[in-house]
């Protein structure tokens, strides 16, 4: 069936879900190409502003669809009455056919094609999505917590200052990760100080002085804004 089926190092959970999501996004982007790029008259074909985005988005749709086709899949087991009811399958086919026809008539065939493809993708993915895919999706969602920590850090640095914020953030996140030993908490603090000194004080990387530093007295204020 697939070239990756027999590889023990290749996780199967989540593959169909990822392919589905990526294909949906790619299809939507392809549908937007007429709106988001221009085709200029009098310009050569290869110099058109639409040429390379077209290759990119078109390739995304094509290759992701082929990848999806090639994935090891397991079919959803439908209730018995659906499996046995011929009329239901006929009716469903008719329904999708009519929907595609109506879309083509109202939007025009070119504009409707991506949407028909999209609907077909979703219908097919309904068959092949498995319980394990949703378990994997939960893991993906759990990463948003770490992204949230990162963004909170980003928001607070210009307010509280790079050094103070790092000195709070590093041990706090270390604590959140489940470390309780004094040694590792202190080493996280030390790491934070080291990073600030190396990047801000020594390499003079561009990180703006904090709002809080404005309240410091004269010379200390300048020193803080420049170095910490």
């Amino acid at each position, binding site marked *: 069936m697939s070239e990756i089926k027999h590889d023990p190092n290749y996780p199967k959970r*989540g593959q169909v879900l990822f392919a589905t999501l990526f294909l949906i996004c790619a299809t939507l982007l392809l549908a937007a190409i007429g709106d988001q790029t221009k085709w200029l008259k009098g310009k050569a074909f290869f110099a058109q502003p639409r040429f390379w985005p077209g290759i990119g988005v078109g390739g995304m749709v094509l290759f992701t669809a082929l990848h999806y086709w090639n994935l090891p899949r397991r079919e959803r087991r439908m209730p018995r009455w659906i499996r046995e009811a011929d009329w239901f399958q006929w009716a469903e086919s008719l329904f999708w056919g009519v929907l595609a026809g109506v879309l083509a008539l109202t939007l025009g065939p070119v504009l409707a094609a991506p949407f028909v493809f999209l609907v077909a993708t979703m219908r097919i993915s309904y068959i092949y999505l498995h319980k394990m895919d949703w378990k994997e999706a939960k893991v993906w969602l759990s990463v948003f917590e770490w992204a949230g920590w990162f963004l909170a850090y980003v928001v607070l640095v210009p307010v509280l200052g790079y050094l103070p914020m790092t000195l709070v953030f590093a041990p706090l996140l270390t604590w959140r990760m489940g470390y309780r030993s004094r040694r590792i908490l202190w080493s996280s603090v030390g790491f934070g100080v080291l990073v600030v000194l190396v990047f801000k004080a020594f390499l003079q990387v561009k*990180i703006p002085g904090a709002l809080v530093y404005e309240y410091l007295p004269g010379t200390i204020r300048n020193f803080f804004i420049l170095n910490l």
Partner: protein
Amino acid sequence: MDLITEFFTQMGASAGILARWDVALALLVGSIGGVLIGAIPGVGPAVAIAILLPATFSMDPIVGLTVLLGIYGSSMYGGSIPAILINTPGTAVNALTTYDGYPMTTRGEARRALSLAYSSSFFGGMFSVAALIFFAPVLAKVAPMFGSREIFLAALLGIILVVVAHRKHTLIAAAMACFGIWLGTIGLHPASYSKRYTFDQSWLSGGVNLIVVVLGLFALSQAFVLLQGDDENVTLKKMKGSFFQGFRELARHPRIAGASATFGVVMGMIPGVGEFTAQFMSYTYAAKTSKRPEDFGHGSSEGLIAAETANNAVPAAAMVPLLALGIPGEALTAMMLSVFYVHNVIPGPQLFQNEMDFVVALYIALALLNVLVVIFLLVATNQLIKVVKIPNKFLGVCILILSFVGVYSLRNSFTDCILAAGFGILGFILKRLSLPIVPIILGMVLGGIMEVKLRSAMARVKTPLDFIDRPIAAILFVMILFVLALHVRRVMLDRKERKAQEWSNSHASTSFETNLSRRKASLLKARGKQVKERRSTFSRRSTDSD
């Protein structure tokens, strides 16, 4: 004679560029930092280079490049340490080292394995630098023959090779490369002043910054992976004795070392191929020509030499397409390209023609780096291996803090950080599913190059055949066709094999009825054995002779 004097004047001029305290410091920091980073499993050179990139923008090009090149060249030395001692490759390219390195550790030869790895890495590194310094005049003659269409074809070849190199993931790798190409096109199209995929958002009109994508896909995603995972318990034993014996042992295998280093240099120069192919080819070569091929994978010193020599010969060679044509062949050199762009130095044939000093200086820096690293490792290995013990989640915290410096110092923009976090999540998902990430970066960089070069090349092309009427263009075109043909052939062979497996009648059936009958047969067999045994207790055959 003329050539030799010319060579020495060249070396003198280039050494002058390096004789500065900041370059020396960069060399030291890059080499020791690279070894440390390589030795920590979970942090590769990609993470480190991505984080340091924005900091190097304010430095001189030669200083910034020396740091990055130092990390690139020395991380593989460090990566071999955990590969040999705890069977976990420190960087991705050390995966092959575990095959023969770890079995040597299990039979108590850890010190021999490590010293062999250091000495073969050193040989690979020095061999490639020497080869490239000697070939540089030749390259300087060939490089100007690359016009727009040749560079376009070389970039195309690079993208195709990267996609094809991801065995078993070719299709999704192609999709990712196209994703990268599309990402690169976002923003204002400079040739026509028309917006592309900006969705009327002002923050998108400047385009998606490569550094933001790189930091998200490599650094943040790795932080997420580490934070999500578990800590491992690592036990290490202290090693006694010196690490010098490896050089003597390496000297007994000159053929394998030479061939592997050559594979490394040649494969490194072709964009999109890189370490893995070089290692694979030299390892196969070593196994086929060895007197004891059965030892490979069970602690063969020749296997270790082949793997380590090949991967360390690549970095110097990988700089060739970057410097001579402006085409990066892999993620790390793609990141280094942005250092050039920031300083408005566009690498290409002109760089090789006019600034040979700069190029040779980089190579001398690389050679010095190898010497520094080997001295450092010979002295400090026992202290260094302690970094392996840093717990994974704590490492994740550290990378998250460092990633902030990388993203935020670029433009002090919050949207950049959100974008990087988004790419971090995408990278995390791709890593979980073991899908390829590198094609995205290469698609982004090479896509931009291809767009510009194709436009200027097509201006002078009337018929399609005009495109390949120059010798180098024709060679590149034939290479592209050859690579595609090889790939098609391999896909067909794989397919045939798969079909043969599906149709063969000796496989374990998955059908329910067959399983039942098999179960029944095995139960009956077990029962039969039991009965036989019981009966035999009553009439046991005598084994005594009397």
